[in-house]
Each structure stands twice: as structure tokens, then as C-alpha cells.
């Protein structure tokens, strides 16, 4: 059975194949998990710059005079903290405070916002947003399949990118964005990222995809796949939807309590539950994990204390930077203190571990 026939392809698909990438199904797309080595790609991003095809992610345009009011109701973060040419990270939540998706929206004008959402949630998010318009002046356009997206991340990303663009990148601060030209081609560029390094995320019409990739490779970046994307974000301790946040975990439980804003006088979905969790705390919380015994922490492993199950691993893996296994787990709050000794059930063994502080690594 040829699985590839049933999967969607990004405009970079042929490039990935030509580079010998190992392809996997991710959110219904055939995506590169690695080109040569997850560890080498991870290290290239930490030392120079890597490019990631993230065209499988969703991109929406929200337009209309009521967009800000609409987003204030849908999002837990506060758009009063936003300004034109800036982006904001937020979750949108259900009434019970659990998460529909985490995403970033960019204020292009007070009646025009660009939103980037997770690949696995494109249809769900589009529906969720449209369901809540309810007569407001808001129009949402789904640009996901019309535009391509690349993440360009690493300490040398400014140095490599500057000669290719027609604006001064040094004036774009973290979370700010611009529209400019790369090699003469129009792009949207934001100083945001998911790796814990300085870098950019860019989006552009599909017709420019192959040329832009080629320009970035010539400038010195190396291709990096989804395997490295995951090990990088885990070191930087960024949440991954479906793991640290989902429709049964709230942002406060996930440690994203700072996203939950008071927004006085403004009602938003999940406000009561989330503000209460923020002031009173939650029964469970996400913490960092290390092993004391030898082994590798992986998603789903049970966390044990004194013979009782106290939680489970939400994300686990190997950290090339720290050269050891790291993980995040959702555990009962009484065990959340740094240094608490726990055990992790690794297949048929109980390995000794410990709660550690996070992030494991940041270099933004």
C-alpha cells in the first residue's frame, strides 16, 4: 500500500524527497521527520541556522470592524497588550478552561489579523471561530493551502537572512512582524519561533516556495525536520498541543498561567474557570523531569511515587544539548517541587527520576 497517495503534500515535498528525507504522516501531510540525523539537525539550529517546512500549519485571515472584540471574547490573552505590527501567543479555550488550540495572531490593522494555528486543528479551529462570530462584523478566510510557511531558526538567522531582505531586520523586535521582500518576492516575516533560538517564521504565496527555500539554503541554513523541531521545542519547554495542552488540560495546569488575563469588563470563553484556577491553583500541574537511572523518558509513561500513580509523561525524549533524557509530565500538585524524587515506569521497569525546573534551555 502506498501511503503517500493519501497524504497531502506541501510545496516543498519534492525537495524533501530529493534530499533523502524520511517522510511520515503528520496531521494528514507527508512531512520530513529527518533528512540525515535528528541530532545533527538539532545541533545545526543551536549553532547556526536551520529551516523547517511548516506549511502544514494553518493560516487564517480575520477581517472586519469587530475583529478585536471578537478575539477578546475567544482568546484568553488580552489584545489590549497588542499593537499594530505585533503578534501575540494565546490559547483559545472551552467553557471548562481546557484548550481548543494554542496559536499566534498578528495585528496587521485593527480590522485585519493573521492567525497561525496547529496543523492538526485547522478544521476544528476554523469551525470554532466561525461558530462564535454570531452577527459580529468578522470574516475569516482560510489561507492554509494557498500559502507556504518556513521557520528559519538559529543564532545566525539574522546574519544569514539580512542580505536577502529589503528591510532592516534589527528593528523587528521579538514577536513583531513585517511585510517585505526576500530576493524580490513578497513575504510576511515575524520574529517568532518554537525552538528557543533567535529566528523568524515566514509565510508567502505557494508560487515562491521553491525559490525562497533555495535562497535560504544558499545563505547557509540547513534543512531540519519535525524530529528536530520536537527535540528543540522540548528543550525550550514549549507546549505541544495534544501533549501539554489539549481538550482535557487547561493552560493553568500546563504552566501557561501567564496567558490567562483578568481582562476586566470583558467576558471570554473559559474566564471564570481559568481565573479561579489562577488564584486557587490546580490539582495537577506540568513539571520538568530528569532520570537518575539510565534510560529514555517517553510520552505516556506513568509517573509513580511510593507505589502510587501520580501522573504521566506528556512529552519525553533525548536532549542533544544537555546530552541526557528530558521530559515534561502532568502530576499531582503536591509533588511539583524541584528535587522531588519520583519513579517513571519505562516499559517493564521502574526507573528513578526527579522533578526539575524548566525551561531546560533558552537562547532567545
Amino acid at each position, binding site marked *: 500500500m502506498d501511503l503517500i497517495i493519501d497524504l497531502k503534500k506541501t510545496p516543498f515535498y519534492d525537495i524533501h524527497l530529493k534530499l533523502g528525507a524520511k517522510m511520515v504522516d503528520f496531521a494528514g501531510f507527508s512531512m520530513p521527520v529527518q533528512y540525515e540525523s535528528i*541530532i545533527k539537525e538539532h545541533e545545526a539550529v543551536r549553532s547556526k541556522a536551520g529551516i523547517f517546512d511548516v506549511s502544514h500549519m494553518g493560516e487564517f485571515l480575520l477581517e472586519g470592524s469587530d475583529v478585536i472584540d471578537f478575539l477578546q471574547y475567544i482568546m484568553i490573552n488580552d489584545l489590549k497588550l497588542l499593537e499594530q505590527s505585533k503578534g501575540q501567543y494565546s490559547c483559545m479555550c472551552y467553557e471548562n478552561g481546557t484548550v481548543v488550540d494554542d496559536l499566534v495572531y498578528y495585528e496587521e490593522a485593527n480590522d485585519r489579523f493573521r492567525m497561525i494555528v496547529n496543523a492538526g486543528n485547522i478544521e476544528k479551529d476554523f469551525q470554532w471561530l466561525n461558530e462564535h462570530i454570531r452577527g459580529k462584523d468578522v470574516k475569516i478566510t482560510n489561507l492554509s493551502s494557498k500559502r507556504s510557511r518556513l521557520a528559519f531558526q538559529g543564532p545566525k538567522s539574522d546574519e544569514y537572512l539580512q542580505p536577502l531582505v529589503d528591510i532592516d531586520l534589527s528593528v523587528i523586535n521579538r514577536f513583531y512582524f513585517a511585510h517585505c521582500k526576500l530576493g524580490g518576492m513578497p513575504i510576511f516575516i515575524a520574529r517568532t519561533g518554537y525552538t528557543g533560538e533567535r529566528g523568524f517564521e515566514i509565510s508567502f504565496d505557494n508560487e515562491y516556495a521553491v525559490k525562497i527555500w533555495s535562497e535560504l539554503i544558499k545563505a547557509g541554513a540547513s534543512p531540519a525536520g519535525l524530529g528536530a523541531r520536537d527535540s528543540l521545542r522540548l528543550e525550550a519547554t514549549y507546549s505541544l498541543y495534544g501533549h501539554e495542552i489539549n481538550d482535557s488540560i487547561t493552560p493553568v495546569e500546563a504552566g501557561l498561567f501567564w496567558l490567562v488575563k483578568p481582562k476586566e469588563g470583558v467576558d471570554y470563553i473559559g474566564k471564570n474557570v481559568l481565573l479561579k484556577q489562577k488564584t486557587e491553583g490546580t490539582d495537577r500541574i506540568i513539571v520538568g523531569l530528569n532520570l537518575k537511572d539510565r*534510560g529514555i523518558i517517553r510520552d505516556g509513561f506513568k509517573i509513580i511515587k511510593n507505589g502510587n500513580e501520580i501522573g504521566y509523561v506528556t512529552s519525553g525524549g533525548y536532549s542533544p544539548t544537555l546530552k541526557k*533524557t528530558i521530559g515534561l509530565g502532568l502530576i499531582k500538585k503536591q509533588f511539583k517541587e524541584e528535587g522531588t524524587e519520583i519513579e517513571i515506569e519505562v516499559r517493564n521497569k521502574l526507573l528513578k527520576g526527579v522533578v526539575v525546573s524548566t525551561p531546560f534551555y533558552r537562547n532567545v
Partner: protein
Amino acid sequence: MVNIIEHEFPSELKYLQTHEWVRIQDNIATVGITDFAQHQLGDIVYVELPEIGMAFDKGSNVAEIESVKAVGELIMPLSGKILEVNTDLADNPESVNSSPYGSGWMVKIELSNKNEINELLSVEAYQEIVEAEKA
């Protein structure tokens, strides 16, 4: 069109269809995983080796090989007792990727039943299995 990867399979070794290789010298067998297996697994980050002196039957799991994204098992190609394990893999698990037949070896076995050697695959038979898996 998928990029065809050329794997290396030394002709003097014997193989298992579960992608182990075996080097036999008198009554001692050295075992590791093939170039195909290391490529399938990806970057190896940890290998859990058996204790010296333990006896295993042909076909049992003797080691766990963890890569960034997956866990593989080393299957005993022949029955016997563990004589030696590659302790270098504790600090250099990546040797399994860079030198699967050399510094990436995993265990040395003292054989208990040399007749089992006849059941091992030649390099040609193993290569056919790999081709079939790649198709």
C-alpha cells in the same frame, strides 16, 4: 521518486531477518545491528545491554536499543552465554549509527549450540529481505 540509499552488508558476516549481524570466531559470536537497522531507527541515544554471564536462547530479546524516535530490540541469533558487552556504547551510543559492524558492536556470546549457525542467513539472503522491506 525516492532517494535510494546504499546500505553496507559485509559478506563475511551472517545475518538474521530481524536485522542483526553475527561474526563467528570458533565458539564466540559477536552481534550487532545492521546498517539497514541503524538507518531505520535513526540516531541511537541509549543501549541497554544484558549482564555478563546471563544465558539466553536463540530468539530472545537481549538488549534494548533506543533512538530519538523509536525503541528496537536485539534478538539473540544463537543460544549461549553473554561473555562481554560493549561498554563504550554508554558514552558513545552514536557508534551504532556510524560504525554498526565495528565500534557499534553490542554483545559477545559463548555459543552453546553451534548447529544453530546453519540457520543464519547469508549476506545474499539477507539482502533480499532488505530489498523486500524497502519496496
